[in-house]
């Protein structure tokens, strides 16, 4: 396809966009993405976004945190330099385990939370200093924009424009 054009359709209400997206998808239009200042409830299945795997990521980061914390404490407190704190036994890991639980818990949470946030930023490429890929700055305020590539589903730009106008869009732009 030589005319790989991108159509942007802007809306001023999230519910108008959601209803419009449902109509368009029913007519065979595939929507690449939607830009919105907040998550629009129920838009994901309409435009075919798969369920996020971020939760699995968080679980794995948590496991790493738990393992590192326990391994670290085993080395510091048992192997390398056993310390007598309050007369507690310190020769075996399991005898000290209750004292290690809060630290293991905190470190698990720390790694899961930070890992999840970093993964999110990297995956979306929204790190500090990176140019925003958002086509319209208004979508961080009160506007909602659909991104459509007509070549994805073999519809001409004119046909698509007609369909888009029916959905109550306030601006259609081709870039």
């Amino acid at each position, binding site marked *: 396809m030589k005319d790989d054009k991108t159509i942007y359709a802007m809306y001023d209400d999230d519910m108008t966009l959601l209803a419009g997206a449902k109509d368009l998808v029913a007519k065979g239009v595939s929507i690449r993405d939607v830009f919105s200042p907040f998550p629009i*409830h*129920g838009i994901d299945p309409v435009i075919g976004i798969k369920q996020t795997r971020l*939760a699995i990521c968080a*679980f794995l980061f948590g496991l790493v945190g738990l393992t590192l914390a326990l391994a670290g404490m085993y080395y510091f407190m048992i192997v390398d330099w056993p310390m007598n704190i*309050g*007369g*507690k036994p310190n020769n075996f890991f399991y005898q000290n385990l*209750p*004292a290690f*639980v*809060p630290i293991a818990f905190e470190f698990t949470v720390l790694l899961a939370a930070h890992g999840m946030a970093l993964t999110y930023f990297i995956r979306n490429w929204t790190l500090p200093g990176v140019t925003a890929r958002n086509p319209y700055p208004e979508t961080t305020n009160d506007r909602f924009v659909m991104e459509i590539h007509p070549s994805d589903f073999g519809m001409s730009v004119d046909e698509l424009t007609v369909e888009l106008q029916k959905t109550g869009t306030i601006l259609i732009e081709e870039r």
Partner: protein
Amino acid sequence: MDFIFTKKAKLIFSAFMLIGVIAMVFGYATDVSDHHNRFWANIFVNGFFYFAISLGALFFLALQYATEASYMIALKRVIEGISQYIFVGSGILIIFFAAGSFHLHHVYHWMDISVMYEFVMEATVGSAHPEYIHEMVDGAVKNSNFDKLIAGKSAYLNQPFFWIRTLIYLGVWCYFANLFRKRSLMEDAIGGTKIHFKNMTYAAMFLVFFAFTSSTASWDWIMSIDTHWFSTLFGWYVFSGMWVSFLIVFVLVSIWLKHKGYLPNVNKSHIHDAAKWMFAISFLWTYLWFSQFMLIWYSNIPEEVTYYVIRIDHYKGLFWGIFFVNFLFPMVILLSRDAKRQIGYMITVGLIIFVGHWLDVYLMVMPGSLGAHAEIGFMEVGMALGFLGLFLFVVFRAFSKAPISVVKHPFLDESNHLHI
């Protein structure tokens, strides 16, 4: 839609109750423990466990009202129905406490008046009613039963004050259970928002009262079994246990009702939300269990560790077992979103941790009342089943008395379209 309490269900629950009665009679006859403590402790374990479930329901209902939450309105009658066991549950607890007051059992060591006095008149020693006194006078000798630690607590742990507190707790809780039920039925009839807004005020009042009394009630009723021991966290630990026990019953009963076609407006999102509660409060329970344990373990003060010493020395498997079962099963199995929407997982985990939390109450009560060698035999299992039958019978009867989904509520429509 009205819930029909079928003959078959009645028969099954009655059979459970029959097993319970047989276990009680058989248990009482074969009970060789001091003052039939084993029998009475079993009454208390079951009496308290199922009472706590209905109290948890009342608390959860008040929480929904006070926060004006909409998502559970489609399931409101289920919560309400479970809370209606509180009247029967209170009766059983009163019977148990009264039996203690009349010295039919010695689960509460402090109810024995002889431990409170340092001296006794020598002439009356050995008689049916020895004359105990606080000060040394002519003709008095040291009282061998005297327990300095318990005597120090006598300002709080004495029978008149205990009964005043107990009756206030039970009375106010039952009053609110009845009030919420009545207003809910009234709302069905007249609709509007007036009842809803006023419910918020009542719920807030209840929650403030409950915040104090849930703690003090667990000190009075459960912590005082191990009279020498104390823990400020204990009330919260018991409270989280009762909350999660209620949520388990709530999820399981809702799934069953949905399966029977009684709750057409309840969708997977409602079950998912309830499952999230169950998951979260399992963590709260674990957190409080561990916080109480770890601080006492770490500081290692003799007067604090007694509670754990007897449990770890003599009930090791049970003690660690319930901690891991009640924590790891919900943690590992219910972590993912999909599992919370699969009723198969919910039923499996729910049944396992239901037993787990029953054992938790068992382990709170038994070592203090029976010492190191309590066992789980026919009496324990039979009575647990019997009380389960009674509980479900009362709850299902409450379901059958009102429409199983609320007819009118400001948030009903919102709740019916819950989607997460």
